[in-house]
């Protein structure tokens, strides 16, 4: 990971706080970034949090396409016998179609809860979650969710595992089967269709999980620390593959992670959540200056000069609430 690299970035200024005017957006769809790039003094003063989150809410309706995913003042509290826990508070976010957003924060800050809200398996206690402008009332076919581990069913073959979502959603199984086999083949698992999960390595299993998520053809893919159970080499390789697949298929992706390097290298925008109750602490685009304007692959992005600057800033932001 890039902790060692973070020391070398003192000379390069963090390229993050420049606002939305800088023309470094990737080629093609220029309007994919929400204009919520917060001018972020780092470390931000306590009062600055409020500003950072409210800045995300109002957006120029005319210019940008309607957001694919929108959270309006979302709050979530868990109730237990010992009392209630406020997991998320006043979260407002708008995510454009095709955008790849990473949400980082320390464990227990409600990152995963945020994904559960967007996927519709949890309802917010206050505020509203919208997908394509419509309030989320339950799990929807538009949203695919990749969990921290593969959770493949040991009683099903690889192909059968991949078809779980299609079965549950009652899709045309003939077509789903073709799609699943094609996806698995593309991910290098063509000869394992009828194997059992235990016969596969961790990286292969997580690729099966990705295929399982994509067989139902969601527009939005939620990734909840999808690489956390893998060893570090597999993790880097798979990050490249997954980012490439999701970009090529123009999925809107939301990645939750506590790995700063993973977030910078994969996402084009990073939202930092504060400690519990999780609030939006900062929200900034991640841009790499390249000759052709395309975004470098995650592994290559780690070697870019901008990487260390972002890393430093984000590191400090996370550090702030270790102490505070």
């Amino acid at each position, binding site marked *: 990971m890039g902790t060692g690299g973070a020391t070398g970035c003192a000379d390069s200024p963090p390229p993050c706080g420049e606002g939305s005017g800088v023309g470094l957006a990737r080629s093609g769809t220029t309007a994919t970034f929400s204009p919520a790039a917060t001018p972020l003094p780092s470390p931000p003063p306590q009062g600055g949090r409020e500003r950072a989150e409210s800045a995300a809410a109002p957006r120029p309706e005319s210019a940008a396409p309607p957001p694919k995913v929108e959270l309006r003042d979302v709050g979530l509290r868990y109730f237990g016998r010992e009392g209630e826990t406020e997991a998320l508070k006043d979260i407002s976010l708008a995510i454009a179609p095709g955008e790849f957003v990473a949400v980082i924060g320390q464990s227990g800050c409600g990152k995963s809860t945020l994904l559960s809200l967007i996927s519709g*398996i949890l309802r917010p206690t206050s505020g509203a979650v919208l997908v394509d402008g419509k309030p989320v009332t339950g*799990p*929807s076919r538009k949203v695919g969710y990749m*969990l921290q581990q593969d959770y493949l*069913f*040991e*009683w099903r073959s690889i192909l059968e595992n991949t078809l779980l979502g299609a079965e549950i959603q009652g899709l045309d199984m003939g077509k789903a089967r073709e799609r699943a086999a094609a996806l698995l083949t593309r991910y290098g698992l063509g000869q394992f269709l009828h194997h059992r999960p235990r016969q596969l390595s961790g990286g292969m299993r997580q690729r099966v999980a990705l295929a399982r998520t994509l067989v139902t053809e969601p527009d939005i893919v939620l990734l909840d620390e999808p690489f956390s159970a893998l060893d570090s080499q597999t993790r880097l390789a798979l990050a490249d593959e997954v980012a490439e697949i999701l970009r090529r298929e123009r999925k809107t992706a939301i990645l939750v992670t506590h790995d700063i390097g993973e977030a910078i290298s994969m996402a084009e925008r990073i939202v930092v959540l504060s400690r519990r109750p999780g609030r939006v602490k900062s929200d900034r685009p991640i841009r790499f200056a390249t000759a052709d304007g395309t975004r470098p692959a995650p592994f290559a992005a780690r070697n870019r000069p901008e990487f260390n600057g972002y890393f430093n800033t984000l590191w400090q932001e996370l550090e702030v609430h270790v102490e505070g």
Partner: protein
Amino acid sequence: MSKVETAMAAPAPQAGASPEYLDWLRRERRSRLSVRGAQLALLLVFLVLWELLPRAQIVNPLFTSYPSALWPTFLDLLKATPQQASILTHTWSTVLATVIGFTAAMIIGTVIAAALWWWQALYRVLDPYLVVANAMPKTAFVPIFYIWLGATLSIYGMSLAISLFVTILMIYNGFQGTDANKIKLAQTFGARKGQILTKVVLPGSVPTLIAALKVNVGLSLVGVVVGEFQSANLGLGYLIQYGSQIFKLNIVMTAITILAIVSSVMYLAISWLEAAVMRRR
């Protein structure tokens, strides 16, 4: 036992195995054989003692009979008389009642466990009663079952009663133990409760179901034999009761030996089923 073990152990050594590996295989095989040998020896010692102690008048042969007396007694009991059915008919009756008992316990137990899983509130209400019902000595109900259900049904009833509650508790615990993340995964695809049950909870609980079946076979047999003590004129339990009343220990011991064989065969059948199911996972 042996059939299951030979099926699982002793894969053919692959070509080009190192001498060390072959040596290891040989040692493995030797230790397996010596365990098997010790088991046989133990059985033999038991039979020899059983034969010799009564013959030497150290124990009263009237109380214990001899192993050598079993076979002639068996042949004797094979013949059906107007007063007495053949021992095969007795055995069949006991086996049938046992199979009916544990099959019913499995089906009813799984359905009730699923209902408890479905309605958590129901479980919370019933939990203490289930635990007490499971702890009750069900055999205390043999006379009552006889009055309520009559001669034949009371045997099935006892066989079911003795295994049902433990089945419900075991299977319910299995259902509860389903990985919450697997359920969450199904939910992310929008699974309804019924789909979670059929696609996640039930298939994930197959090992629990087999474990419950294993427990049930033994318990059902106990229920049947105890039921037969009270009410039947057929079955190995009846034969044991009858033999002891007329003080013919030969009959009692023959019936008990057949019971031992019956329970071993059923245990083997389930071990085989278990191995077949687990090989697929």
